[in-house]
């Protein structure tokens, strides 16, 4: 089916994802983040924008990188009315970690990937928590620790959804070949 041309990795060679899909998925992630979360749900909810960002940083590393993380982070900072630059730093760090391990991720099954993603989400959240504690805020509770776990649990579905349109696109390419 697909040619394995690159000697460095087992990354399946796919046509780049259409810009519409990338932008649309970020919009969807943003909408999910902007829902009126409150109480314990706010502590537990995974960061949907960050998950989409990590996905594209892994699969579209040429187009989606740390710059996207920075801008999306600033948008989330304003939306959540928190310290400006807080999410930006966390997102940029998460994208960097993804870039470091992305070649390894492609060798793993989706479930194994989810473990890595959970760790990256946890690091990003750790950055957020540390920044907030450093400006003298209180720790809101250990429910926060569930958020990366839920994020990791959502990785396989996200992966499944995200490859749907692209699968169809690959068929078109095979037909043309």
């Amino acid at each position: 089916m697909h040619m394995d041309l690159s000697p460095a990795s087992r990354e399946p060679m796919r046509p780049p994802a259409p810009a519409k899909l990338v932008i649309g998925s970020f919009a969807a992630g943003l909408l999910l983040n902007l829902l009126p979360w409150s109480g314990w749900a706010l502590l537990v909810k995974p960061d949907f924008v960050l998950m989409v960002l990590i996905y594209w940083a892994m699969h579209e590393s040429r187009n989606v990188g740390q710059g996207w993380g920075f801008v999306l982070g600033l948008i989330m900072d304003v939306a959540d009315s928190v310290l400006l630059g807080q999410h930006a730093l966390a997102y940029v760090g998460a994208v960097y970690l993804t870039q470091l391990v992305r070649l390894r991720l492609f060798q793993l099954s989706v479930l194994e990937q989810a473990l890595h993603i959970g760790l990256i989400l946890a690091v990003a959240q750790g950055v957020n928590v540390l920044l907030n504690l450093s400006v003298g805020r209180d720790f809101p509770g250990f429910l926060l620790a569930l958020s990366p776990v839920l994020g990791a649990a959502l990785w396989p579905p996200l992966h499944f959804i995200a490859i749907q349109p692209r699968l169809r696109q690959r068929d078109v390419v095979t037909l043309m070949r």
Partner: protein
Amino acid sequence: MSVYQENFFTRGPSPLARVVFFAIVSIGVMIADHRFQALGWMRSVVSAMISPIETALAWPGQASRAVGLYFAGQHQLVEENRTLKTELLELAAARAQADQLKSENRQLLALRGEGDRFADQGQIAEIVRDARNPFARKIIIDRGSRHGIAAGRAVIDGAGVVGQVTAVGLMTSEVTLTTEKDHSVPVMVVRNGLRALAVGAGREGTLEVPFIPLGADIQVGDMLVTSGIDGTYPAGLAVATVSAVDKNPADSFARIVAVPVASASSHRRVKVFTQAELHDYPRPDVPEAADPGGKSGKPPRRGPAAPEARK
């Protein structure tokens, strides 16, 4: 095809270089925001774009509440109506007395050359949602700069002080609750007029009253109301009830915990005061000769004519 060739060799700065660059920029932004509050314009631009989306997203919840209200039992509504009417009757007498006391107080204060610490003008706003920041205790209301809301205005609900407007968008504003960590409200004990501060503890339903000497007369059950000396909160609004007083002789101050009377989680509507400046801060006696043009600084208030009509 070209997509793959384009980036074959030229890849720009390494990921490490990039992450260092963006981290430095992020930290710079944080310092600019936290220390100098320099990026307000950026906040208002982005929030103007985001807030219509948020309003749309919050709509289903509000609509379902409205529908639920519509189908509330007839019996329950009648019952509620009856209680409210009884309450209204009881309050009517109190209100008349309060009005009289207020005008009396105003005259007395005017005699002493002091400004008015009471306020009653305001507008009703609805709580849209909690702010999505687990580290802060804030709510979002549906009134913004369009409606004349400005930062610093006091916000109350049916029971007492909810908090203070801290950020204003075009159509929405952010209210920081009194329970926000380190947010303080100047209060006094109703029973004896003892002045104190009610400081948020960062948890729901808890305020702390620091710096009260061990010998001070404060008891469990004491009502704390705003003293009005800060010029932000009008005087006489209920804030909290003292729930615990721990006078340990080993400490220099008593440990006092109070429970706020207002609760943003149980009320949907709040009142935002619109009076900008409740009274002037005491000014040091500066010789008038230093300012011959008389441009800066109002003349010191003396005599009964000084306070403008604020009603």
